């Protein structure tokens, strides 16, 4: 009888319930639809080189979004991730320009973003400040730091190792793959594994769903929160490396909206802004959808303002789907 009821329920599983179980399905569908539409609408979009370019265009925001996913899963937010990354790019490029070993510069940049993560995580747990406020402050401060470091001059990237993620490439089935793409894939796999197969991952979801219950069941909530900001800091440092591989200069005026772009990718990827629900797979699709939209619409000759309009509309659709799914789960 019980079994029958369960089976009966499963047969009547609503779309909302299905999306709750597999939040990456929605963004995957959106991605496929966008690719098909642009491939039909233009004769230039469906081209192996172009598809590779689109992936490369989404690498920096995608890597930022990977860290942002972890933070949003614990119901936090990081408004300072892109500015932390930009500071790291400038520090790395300046060190390299001063003749420092590229590997050393890279390590310094990574330490920098990790320290920022540690700082945010510590304030969030020890003094119980909302992440929004802390990271609003670090965002403003780091943006200024970036401009002060640069002194108005973009820093050309000359070191081979710092450019390596963008310049080294190989062919896979005719598709040009950069080492940056490979590294991003590996990072997504690692974070996916950590989130779904390890105790740490279960703690992250538990803390995001209900921190008090997590604490009562013996999870060290503060330690989990700090670890998330630190791991995210590693992602932002890698994003800085990705950025140096992509663009020829470290420039304090670029990635001005990288923080919001990363949040867009996470939300489009089906991760709930209220924490506890979502996946890095969805984020991967979310970041790709934005890059595909930009590329396809530009090739169709659509004005930039309409591109932003389309991205905004898609974002609202994603949030509405999240809401409906939650409501159906509750009823």
């Amino acid at each position, binding site marked *: 009888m019980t079994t029958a009821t369960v089976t009966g329920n499963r047969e009547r599983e609503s779309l909302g319930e299905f999306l709750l179980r597999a939040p990456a399905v929605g963004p995957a569908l959106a991605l496929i639809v966008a690719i098909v539409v642009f491939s039909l609408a233009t004769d230039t979009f469906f081209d192996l080189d172009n598809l590779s*370019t689109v992936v490369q265009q989404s690498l*920096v925001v995608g890597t930022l979004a990977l860290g942002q996913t972890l933070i949003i899963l614990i119901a936090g937010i990081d408004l300072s991730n892109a500015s932390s990354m930009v500071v790291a790019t400038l520090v790395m490029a300046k060190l390299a320009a001063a003749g420092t070993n590229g590997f050393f510069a890279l390590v310094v940049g990574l330490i920098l973003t990790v320290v920022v993560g540690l700082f945010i995580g510590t304030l969030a747990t020890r*003094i119980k400040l909302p992440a929004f406020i802390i990271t609003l402050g670090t965002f403003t401060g780091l943006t*200024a730091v970036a401009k002060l470091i640069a002194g108005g*001059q973009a820093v050309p990237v000359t070191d081979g190792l710092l450019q390596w993620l963008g310049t080294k490439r190989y062919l896979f089935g005719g598709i040009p793959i950069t080492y940056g793409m490979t590294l991003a894939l590996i990072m997504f796999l690692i974070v996916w594994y950590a989130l779904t197969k390890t105790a740490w991952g279960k703690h992250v979801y538990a803390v995001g769903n209900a921190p008090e219950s997590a604490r009562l069941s013996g999870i060290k909530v503060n330690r989990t929160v700090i670890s998330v900001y630190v791991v995210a800091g590693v992602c932002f440092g890698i994003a800085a490396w990705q950025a140096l591989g992509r663009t020829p200069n470290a420039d304090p005026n670029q990635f001005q909206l990288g923080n919001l772009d990363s949040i867009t990718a996470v939300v489009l990827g089906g991760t709930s802004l209220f924490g506890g629900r979502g996946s890095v797979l969805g984020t991967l699709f979310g970041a790709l959808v934005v890059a595909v939209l930009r590329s396809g619409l530009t090739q169709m000759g659509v004005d930039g303002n309409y591109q932003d309009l389309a991205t905004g509309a898609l974002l609202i659709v994603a949030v509405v789907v999240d809401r409906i799914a939650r409501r159906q789960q509750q009823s």
Partner: protein
Amino acid sequence: MRQRSLTALALVAAVAVGTAGCTVERHWGGNSTTAGSGKAKIGLVTKTDTNPYFVELRNSASAAARANGADFSALAGQFDGDNDGQVRAIENLTQQGVNTILITPSSSTGVLKAIKDARDAGILVIALDTATEPADAVDATFATDNFAAGQQQGAYVKAALAGADPKLLMVDGTAGSSVDTERHGGFLKGIGLTDSSPQIKGHTAANGDQSLAQQGMENLLQRTTDINSVYSMNEPMGRGAYAALKARGLTGQVVMGSIDGGCEGVQNVKDGLYGATVMQFPKKMAEQGVLAAVQYAKTGKKPTGFVNTGSTVITDKPMPGVPSQNTTWGLQNCWGGTK
């Protein structure tokens, strides 16, 4: 534990103060001077105090004020577009009893009410770098004629094409901003096209962001690589566009022009990233603004209208019919010649 919390709170407070503070410079000469006493008291309001262009403008104004024995106080918005911050700056300066306000308005309309209040209080208001709409909302404007600057860029690119029909990609700045609109329109006039010309093979808006310019250019080049000219609204976007062209191996067949004249942009021209850039002169704007303020304090005479502080094409490949200077001159004079 409590001690640690306090330390952290102090840190937060330090960060907050560090980022919110915007007073950057002040030197008052004598004491108890009042407006109309013959001594100029000048207040400068720039868009931000981190952008090197406005730093150059501020330093030049400060130096000119010192040289002329004028009191000087500089304030800034916190970011480009911070109208509210600029309004507060104007109110503060009015309160301090300045007799001239020099302002680079964040938006051409956002601070008009505060400017009107200041003028009603008898203060001379001069717009530097960016005009207001309407232009007579201020007493006078000392700025680059951006339309003329764009036109020079267009004329250079046209001459460099040596009679070939343009096949043009355009990298615009922020859609709707007056500077962007003027440079865009000037460029098209200079090269002899209109917005509906079929010679324009595509355009992208990149908000002054190098990475967005690179991305937009990559997408445009997917559409067509049959191009011979590129418009870039400023130098960081020119660098992004160049990266995309280079990846496609197109740099040899394309003439790109840019505008701004920062030292780094001039170096880019020297290194061959783009054929030419059009230099503007913030130092002239600042110095002429200060001199006008000094004259107003002495004689009560106000400057009027739009004063073009000029723009100059910088290139190492001069074209007949397009007056220009080379990059050696450019590096000596970039944004006022401090380097």
